C-alpha cells in the first residue's frame, strides 16, 4: 500500500498509509484465485465473506463489495486499517504459501473509504423491534460489534461509555496517523443510524451499578477492556515526564495535546524519549513522540527484534521514521534532576535463555548495566484488565490476573451478564475483541429466546 514519505509524515499527525485507488484495488483483487474452501474467512474473527467481496471488487462492483464487508464488520474503515491481517485472514490465504497473500486489509479499507467518499450507506432494513433491552458497558471494538449485532436483530440497545467520546481504544489509544479520528466518528455514526443509544460520562460500577442495570436491562455485556497500565515497579518510576503509554496516548489522541495550546491539555515534548516495550502500543507511542518533535526516540525492549509482539508493518514504519531500537535491555531504575524531572534510564543488559510459558526465550539479566539520558519516558509494557467492575461487583468471577472468567460464549458467573474482549483475554487485538462481541451477541440472542418464557422482570426508568 502506498505510504507518505517518512520525512514528510513525521512532521504532522496525518495518516501515513494512503490506501489503494480503484485501479490498484481491482488489480490486487484480480490476483485472488477464489479458492472454494476460502481459508481466509476462517482467519477472520468476525467472518467477513472475503472471497465474495474481493470478487465484487474485481468486477468493479464496489458498492456490492462494501455491503458484503459491512455485514461482517460494522466498522470496515477501522478494521481495514488496524487489523493485524498478517496474523488473521492473510495468514490463511492460499497465495501466502506461494509467496504474497492477497492484501485483504488494504482491499477492505479501499471499499470502506470508497463508500464513504461517495456517501454510500447500507440501507437499514425495516427491523421488527423487540421489547428486550440490552446494556453494553464500553464503546470499544467488542462493545461496537455486540451493540450493532443486537440492534440489527431489533433489540433496544444502550451503550455506556465513561469517557467523553465513544470508541474506546480507537479514540484514546490508536493515534491519528494510523487511524484518523474523523473515520472513527463516521463509522460510529452507523450505531446511531441503527438506533443505538450511546450514553457518555457513565462509569458503570460508580455512576450506576451492575445490579441496578439488571433491573432495567434483560442482559448486560461488559466490554471495558484492558486499560489499566502495568507499572515497572522500579525506583524512580514516578519522576516527572515518565508517562504510562495510556496517559501519553490519551493526552495526544483523545485530548489532542499535539494541538496544544488550541486544545487545553498539555504534553511534555521531549527531545530524547525512551519507550519501554515492544508491542504495537510502544510503536504508537514512539512514533507519536517523534511527531511531537523529539530528536531521538529509543525503543527499549528486553528481548530481540524477532520476539517483538508489534506488527512487522508498524516496526518498519517506526524504523523508517527514525525510531531507534535497543534490544536486550530492561529498566532497573530512573534518575531525576532537582525538580524531579527524569534524566536517565538505568538499564540491565539481558541475554536470552530457555523459552518461558509464552514460548519465547526468557530474558535473563547479565549483571551488566548501562544508562541512557532522556527527558521523557513512556512505559508501554502492557495493561491489566480494567479493575472498576470487578472491584465493585465481586459476584462476577475473575481469575488471578483480574480477567473476567467466561464460558466459550461469553457468559460470566453472574446470570444475564456477559463479557468479552480484553476484559476477558487480557491483551488482544481490535478484531479479536470484535469477535467476542459477535459471540456474546449470539449467546444473548439465544439465551433471551429461552428465558423469554421465564419473563425477566425489568422496568424502564
Amino acid at each position, binding site marked *: 500500500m502506498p505510504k507518505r514519505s517518512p520525512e514528510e509524515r513525521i512532521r504532522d499527525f496525518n495518516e501515513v498509509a494512503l490506501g489503494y485507488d480503484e485501479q490498484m484495488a481491482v488489480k490486487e483483487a484480480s490476483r485472488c484465485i477464489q479458492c472454494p474452501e476460502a481459508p481466509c474467512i476462517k482467519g477472520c474473527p468476525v467472518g467477513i465473506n472475503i472471497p465474495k467481496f474481493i470478487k465484487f471488487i474485481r468486477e468493479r462492483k464496489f458498492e456490492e463489495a462494501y455491503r458484503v464487508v459491512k455485514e461482517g464488520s460494522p466498522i470496515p474503515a477501522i478494521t481495514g486499517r488496524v487489523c493485524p491481517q498478517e496474523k488473521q485472514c492473510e495468514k490463511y490465504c492460499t497465495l501466502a504459501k506461494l509467496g504474497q497473500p492477497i492484501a485483504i486489509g488494504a482491499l477492505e479499507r479501499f471499499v470502506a473509504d470508497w463508500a464513504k467518499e461517495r456517501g454510500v450507506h447500507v440501507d437499514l432494513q425495516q427491523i421488527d423491534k423487540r421489547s428486550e433491552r440490552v446494556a453494553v458497558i464500553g464503546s470499544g471494538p467488542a462493545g461496537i460489534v455486540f451493540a450493532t449485532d443486537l440492534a440489527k436483530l431489533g433489540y433496544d440497545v444502550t451503550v455506556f461509555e*465513561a*469517557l*467523553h467520546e465513544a470508541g474506546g481504544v480507537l479514540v*484514546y489509544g490508536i493515534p491519528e496517523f494510523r487511524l484518523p479520528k474523523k473515520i472513527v466518528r463516521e463509522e460510529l455514526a452507523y450505531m446511531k443510524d441503527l438506533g443505538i443509544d450511546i450514553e*457518555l*460520562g*457513565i*462509569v458503570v460500577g*460508580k*455512576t*450506576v451499578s451492575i445490579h441496578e442495570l439488571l433491573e432495567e436491562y434483560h442482559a448486560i455485556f461488559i466490554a471495558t477492556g484492558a*486499560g*489499566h*497500565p502495568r*507499572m515497572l*515497579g522500579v525506583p524512580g*518510576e*514516578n519522576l*516527572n*515526564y515518565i*508517562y*504510562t503509554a*495510556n*496517559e501519553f496516548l*490519551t*493526552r495526544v489522541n483523545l*485530548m*489532542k495535546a499535539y494541538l*496544544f*495550546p*488550541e*486544545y*487545553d*491539555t*498539555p504534553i*511534555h515534548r521531549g527531545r530524547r524519549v525512551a519507550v519501554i516495550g515492544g508491542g504495537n502500543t510502544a510503536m504508537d507511542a514512539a512514533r507519536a513522540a517523534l511527531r511531537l518533535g523529539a530528536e531521538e526516540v529509543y525503543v527499549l525492549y528486553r528481548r530481540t527484534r524477532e520476539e517483538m509482539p508489534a506488527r512487522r508493518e508498524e516496526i518498519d514504519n517506526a524504523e523508517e521514521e527514525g525510531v531507534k531500537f535497543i534490544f536486550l535491555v530492561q529498566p532497573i531504575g530512573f534518575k531525576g534532576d532537582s*525538580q*524531579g524531572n527524569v534524566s536517565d534510564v538505568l538499564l540491565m543488559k539481558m541475554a536470552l535463555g530457555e523459552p518461558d510459558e509464552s514460548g519465547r526465550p526468557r530474558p535473563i539479566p547479565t549483571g551488566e548495566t548501562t544508562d541512557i539520558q532522556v527527558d521523557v519516558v513512556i512505559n508501554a509494557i502492557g495493561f491489566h484488565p*480494567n*479493575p*472498576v467492575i470487578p*472491584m465493585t461487583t465481586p459476584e462476577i468471577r475473575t481469575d488471578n490476573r483480574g480477567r473476567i472468567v467466561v464460558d466459550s460464549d461469553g457468559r460470566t458467573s453472574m446470570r444475564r451478564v456477559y463479557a468479552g474482549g480484553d476484559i476477558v483475554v487480557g491483551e488482544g487485538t481490535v478484531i479479536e475483541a470484535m469477535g467476542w462481541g459477535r459471540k456474546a451477541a449470539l449467546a444473548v440472542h439465544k439465551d433471551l429466546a429461552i428465558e423469554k418464557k421465564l419473563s425477566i422482570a425489568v422496568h424502564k426508568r
Partner: protein
Amino acid sequence: MNKVLSKKVLAPNVKEMDVYVPRIARVAKPGQFVIVMPDEKGERIPLTLVDWNSFEGWIRLVFLEIGVTTYKLGLKEVGESLYYIVGPLGNPTYVGKFGTVIIVGGGVGIPAAYPIARAFKEVGNYVISIIGARTSKLLIYEDRIREVSNEVHVTTDDGSKGFKGFTSDMLANLLESGLKPDLIWMVGPAPMMKSCSAIAKKYGVKAVASLNPIMVCGMGMCGACRVTVAGRTRFACFEGPEFDADKVDWDELIKRLNMYRKEEQEALNRFRDALASIAMQR
C-alpha cells in the same frame, strides 16, 4: 443535563457552581470527586464534590480560576451546560465514629472539607475545624464550616482574620496544648498537608489526607495521578483520593503538581490575550 443552575463568586477568582447532574447527585458520597470538561477543547479536571442533593439532582462545585480550563468553567453562565461531567469517582471517606476529629481545610480546600466535617459530625464525632487562607478576602465557606463543626479555628497568613499563621501552626498549637484527637482529616494545598502530616506524626495522631494530583482519566486508566504511598505506586483516582498522610511521598507529589507550570502559563497568557481582543472588538 449538565446545566449550570447557579453561580456565585465566593472570593476573587473563586466560584461556586451548582450543576444539574441527577445521575451523580443520586449516588454521591463525601470524599468523592467528578471530572469536568467545560467545552470540548478543555482539559479533564478533577473537582471535589462540595455538596449535592439527590432529590433535586444537583451537585455543587467550588473552583479557583487558575488555568485555562478553570477560567472557561467560570465563564459558563446559568442555563448553559458543561460539555462533560463524570462521576462520582474515587472512594468515599470512611466516616466512622472516632471521637474527636480535627478537620483541616486550606484555601479552596475548605469547601472540600465541608461535606466531610458534616458527615463526621452527623455520626456523632466532636468536630474541630481548622480553616485557613492567605488573607481574609480569600477565606471562603467559614459560615458553612461553622454549621457543621463543634469548634472552628480560623487562620490567615497575614493575620487579617483570626490567628496569624498557617493552619499547620494552629494544628501544632492545639496538639501542643494537650488536645488528643482520634483522627486528623485534611484537604488543601500539598505543602500545607505535608506540614500538617508531619505535626500529626509528631504527636502520634492518625491522619488522613485527601490528595489533589493532576488527573486525566480519573478512573484508573492513565496513571497521571500516581503517588507513592508507603513506598508503593498508587493511582489516587481509584485507589484514593485519601491515603494515610504520613505514608505519602509529599515531595514527589509537589514536584508532580508543578510538572506543567510552563505550559499552563503559556496557555493562560494566550487565553487572556484572546479574551482581551474579543473585548476590544466589542
